[in-house]
């Protein structure tokens, strides 16, 4: 590995969040935080954001329009057939398929977006900093070059409740 990292390892959520906030006040941000479950204070505190919900909305919008358009094209324009005396453009009964197929499109497209953006996909090799971060340890990763000036205070805060590895 070309870069050097400092790992702050904590035993529970409360101490992790406490250290994270103290460091944030000092202007030191971890490169990444690994936790066994989502910790909301960290997710809100890290300088990252996600637009996955917005993406899902637009997938839904376009899927709904596309599906409704297809149904109308197939049943009204391409090959109109009378079913049970209903008009060709039986709009209310198109809604059912539109809703369900839209939900399916949103789900699949959002899953692919998640997979691409969070880089979680089949065949990926995990970059593991700490073996137990998926089990019971809460790990903050710092880039040693980026925090050269504050490394003393950083270490002090990390060792208050956690330990450095």
């Amino acid at each position, binding site marked *: 590995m070309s870069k050097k990292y400092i790992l702050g390892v904590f035993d529970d959520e409360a101490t992790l969040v406490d250290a994270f906030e103290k460091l944030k006040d000092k202007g030191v941000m971890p490169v990444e935080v690994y936790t066994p*479950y989502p910790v909301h204070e960290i997710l809100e505190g890290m300088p990252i954001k996600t637009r*996955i919900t917005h993406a*899902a909305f637009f997938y839904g919008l376009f899927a709904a329009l596309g599906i409704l358009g297809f149904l109308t094209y197939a049943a009204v324009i391409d090959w109109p057939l009378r079913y049970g005396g209903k008009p060709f453009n039986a709009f209310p009964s198109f809604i059912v398929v539109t809703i369900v197929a839209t939900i399916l499109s*949103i789900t699949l497209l959002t899953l692919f977006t998640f997979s691409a953006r969070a880089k979680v996909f089949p065949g990926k090799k995990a970059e593991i900093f700490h073996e137990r971060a998926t089990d019971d340890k809460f790990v903050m990763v710092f880039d040693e070059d980026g925090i050269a000036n504050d490394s003393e205070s950083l270490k002090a805060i990390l060792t208050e409740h956690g330990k450095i590895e």
Partner: protein
Amino acid sequence: MYNSAVRGKLIDGEKSFSQISKEILAPIHAKTPLWWYAAMMVSLGMFGFGLYCKYITVSTGIGTWGVNNSVAWGWAIINFVWWIGIGHAGTAFSIFLLILRQKWRTAINRAAEAMTVVAVFCASLFPLLHMGRPWLFFFIFPYPNTRGPLWVNFNSPLFWDFVAISAYLLISASFWYFGMVPDFATIRDTAKSKIKKAVYGFFAFGWTGSSREWLRFEGLSFVLGGIAAVLVVSVHSIVSTDFAVSVQAGWHTTIFPPYFVIGAIFSGFAMVLTLVITMRGLYNMNDFITDRHVDAVCRILIFISLIMGTAYMTEIFIAWYSASEYETYMFFKNRLFGDYAFQFWAMFTANAVIPQLFWFKAVRKRMWIVFIISIIINIGMWFERFNIVVTTLSRDYLPAAWANYSPTYVEIGFFVGTLGMFLAGVLLFFRYIPMIAISELKSVAKFDKPNNGQLKAKSHE
């Protein structure tokens, strides 16, 4: 840390995070017990018999079934609706309790979703084979073809049903799978054997638990949760329109969609109870799926059972109030006292009366009684579908077309085969997949003294 004023602790026994992972993963890391092989043999035997019956159905034809011109829908549709109903609980459990922020769902939702996926798969076999020529099933896809192109009938509930079921299968399977990715990573990082590390490592998709992953994961579950809630309600409503859109006495009613959705969730929750009580018994999960969890599900069942009773009474009342000769005949002569009166009263007793025993705490805390009642509810829900399908079809508007129906061994074998498939699926789930969502459970783990009292824990939500 999660604090709940109403429910108290969600996990018993002061467990640390690593203890939680260890105890839930114990069945995966341990040797396969002997009873597992025995149970697997039995379910594969049932599955094999089902395969034989499917072979007869396909090679000879639907004529090997007991269905006839009047009662054209027999066990196949009954079992289809029954399995789909059971399949609803998984998503209902995760989604509705997620929306209602009921954190106790975390111990149960994985099992419920596993059950959903297997049950919906079982269900989808019935319409497929009822088509008679299942090798032409792709005709139902609206694809450009050389027959015109002739499109499918978008006004038909049977087409809606096809779209709904395939969407539901895909969505519930992917929802379930993505919930498991963090847990597969936990298995990868705790496993000792190289093979296990590689296999679960592959299925974990390179998950590490970084905040970038978690943030998007939360966004994803928010989106999927929100839209799948719509799906749960719409899928079984669509199944009900298979019946309600036809002009048949006993089917042609507006109560059908909510009645079917509630019935589906009812049978599904009962099946969840059956499953989690089995899990508690076999794998000693009592600290995670506590008596309080079972108690909460029982209370929900009382409520749904009351709705079921109300729905039955409403149907009967409206049959009289509508002053329709056919409706009145269907309910008062045929269903209540006709050839299939036994099925009607079995349904009524099992779904509307027996679950009322859950009002008593003494019943709710005796697991074997809860287990038996959960089975009774599932049998009752099966009779409900029998009652809807067969009584209406057997007594048409034209007495000359009246016919009775009883299944042949081929239909029974088909059903037994899907039961075997379900059991085999559940057994595989017990053995190879974490039965409880570990990462979700950790987020609700509540310790009396966080960090030995050094820091005051903040609670969110």
